[in-house]
């Protein structure tokens, strides 16, 4: 069954030749996909635009809104531990303007062992494909923006903040306004507990997490409140204690908040990004050498692949709206129109069911827009 799909060439594709010459095989995926995986994994922008269907048995499906997750699922199901694949076809997103289907091409390198070189290869091929697709468009060469989520994780790994804060900032990174609120709290004074919570705190403050959980169990039982709604008493208690701990700290870590803000605000040309980040890190007393060395390696690989970093932009906060990315991120624009985007998403394969960690880097090309057939900024 697998053989039918693997290796079949996409007819009449102007970009397929480029991908196949680089050793990427065509892989087709079903248009009809289980809805759950997209509802749980995709960002809000995609989730709200899904076309959902219910089958006669009541199970929910959706029309694929992108190609990365369908391709990843095929590879996981095949049991392969590495794959270099590409795909092309319709994806479906409700747009509000009556148009719901778009042609997308996807390129994925799964299970690769050379992060920098693999990142650079995907970027170079995506960029090349966009040039071919845009050969009839007046400005054929698209503008690139690069980013690296590894920088943010590097700051958090080494910054002098309580572990609860480290985790909290990591979890909320994807939501810019929530994250901003957290930084404000980290800078300023903690929010006091309200009366109801203060009373509870008086009875469980100072207990170990286990004792506190038992106490909360007892309190709920006495009040005749059933534990409903999918969260365990352990996790409720843990968050309550976290909240109470914040309230008891007078001020938190203003210097760390300021450092995070300064680094994330950096925008530069890509060829100077490493130096500018290193300077910022030094000014704010951060040690992010490991993350910077990864970034430097990647930029070197990109230059080796023939990319002119003097013509690409770098933005340190770029990529935070794309929840599953873990490292390299990029997109390609022509004017205001985004024509391609991609990056590294090392966590996704296991979240989708792979039995062992599996590296992953890939891209998606909006074929209609890249070839100038469709304007507009639909995301």
């Amino acid at each position, binding site marked *: 069954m697998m053989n039918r799909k693997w290796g079949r060439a996409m007819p009449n594709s102007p970009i397929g030749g480029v991908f196949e010459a680089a050793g990427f095989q065509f892989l087709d995926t079903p248009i009809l996909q289980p809805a759950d995986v997209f*509802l*749980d994994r995709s*960002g*809000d922008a995609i*989730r*709200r635009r899904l076309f959902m269907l219910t089958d006669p048995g009541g199970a929910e499906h959706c029309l694929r809104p992108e190609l990365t997750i369908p391709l990843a699922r095929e590879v996981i199901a095949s049991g392969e531990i590495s794959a270099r694949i590409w795909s092309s076809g319709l994806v479906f997103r409700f747009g509000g303007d009556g148009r719901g289907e778009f042609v997308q091409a996807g390129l994925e390198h799964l299970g690769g062992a050379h992060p920098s070189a693999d990142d650079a290869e995907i970027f170079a091929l995506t960029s090349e494909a966009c040039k071919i697709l845009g050969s009839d468009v007046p400005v054929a060469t698209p503008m690139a923006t690069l980013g690296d989520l590894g920088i943010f994780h590097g700051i958090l790994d080494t910054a002098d903040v309580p572990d609860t804060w480290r985790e*909290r900032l990591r*979890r*909320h990174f994807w*939501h810019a*306004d*929530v994250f901003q*609120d957290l930084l404000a709290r980290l800078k300023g004074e903690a929010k006091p507990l*309200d009366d*109801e*919570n203060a009373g*509870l705190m008086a009875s469980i403050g100072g207990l170990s997490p286990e004792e506190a959980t038992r106490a*909360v169990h007892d*309190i*709920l039982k006495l*009040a005749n*409140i*059933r*534990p*409903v*709604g*999918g*969260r365990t*008493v352990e*996790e*409720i*208690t843990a*968050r*309550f204690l976290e*909240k109470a701990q914040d309230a008891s700290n007078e001020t938190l870590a203003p210097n760390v908040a300021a450092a995070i803000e300064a680094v994330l605000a950096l925008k530069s040309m890509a060829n100077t990004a490493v130096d500018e980040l290193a300077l910022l890190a030094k000014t704010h007393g951060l040690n992010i050498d490991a993350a910077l060395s990864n970034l430097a390696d990647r930029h070197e690989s990109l230059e080796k692949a023939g990319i002119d970093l003097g013509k690409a932009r770098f933005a340190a906060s770029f990529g935070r709206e794309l929840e599953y990315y873990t490292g390299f991120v990029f997109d390609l624009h022509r004017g205001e129109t985004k024509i391609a985007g991609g990056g590294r998403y090392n966590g996704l394969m296991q*979240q989708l069911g792979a039995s062992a960690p599996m590296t992953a880097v890939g891209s998606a090309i909006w074929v209609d827009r890249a070839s100038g057939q469709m304007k507009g900024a639909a995301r």
Partner: protein
Amino acid sequence: MSNDRLILAVPSKGRLQEAAFEMFDRAGFAVTRAKGGRGYTGEIAALPQLDVLLLSAGEIARGLDAGEIHLGITGEDLLREYAPDFDVSIALLKPLGFGHADVVVAVPQGWIDVSDVEDLREVSVDFFSRHQRRMRVATKYANITHQFFSAHGLTDYRIVESLGATEGAPASGSAELIVDITSSGATLAANDLKVIRGGTMLESQAQLAASRQAPWGEGATSTLTALSKPLELGDAVTRLRVKGAKS
């Protein structure tokens, strides 16, 4: 198109219908139902250019949004739910002072760490990272919920459509929390739920609403003018035309 009559939709049953009929009565517009009171159409003797339809409250909201009826009496909650582009399709002419109900977000009482919307936002992200799935919100108000949550930066959730007994969803395990209407809060408490601070999405009541999408010819417009004074609608025709109206 061919005839320029004004279509007025009134709820077909219950308390909302009684109150609506009383209101028209008081203004001197007694509604007579067809077929000796059993039909789902009717008329107002004083306004020969007006047809009355008796529809469910949900159908009235949909019909106003689609421009199939000119005027209707229904809950603001349903209007805001069924008309995603609210200002473009609907003009609220008069709050009627009955059918009060708040659309609220309610979480399990056992969530002692959640007292306001900001807590809920943090919990939604915690929940996803702990359970590898998004917390589920049972509701029949998917649009109102989306608008409220995204205005508060809350994105890690998914809607579970619920068409009845929504309060029971957390206890039955089909959702973590709910968005629903409540008038007293007693049903919520009976199901181990509490409303969080700042969690009132909409204070709803019955409204006399006009559709901006309906064909407002001269006849329909002058019928609305005739209704305006006795029903104390102010300058209904101008309000219908101005705010957010499509050119």
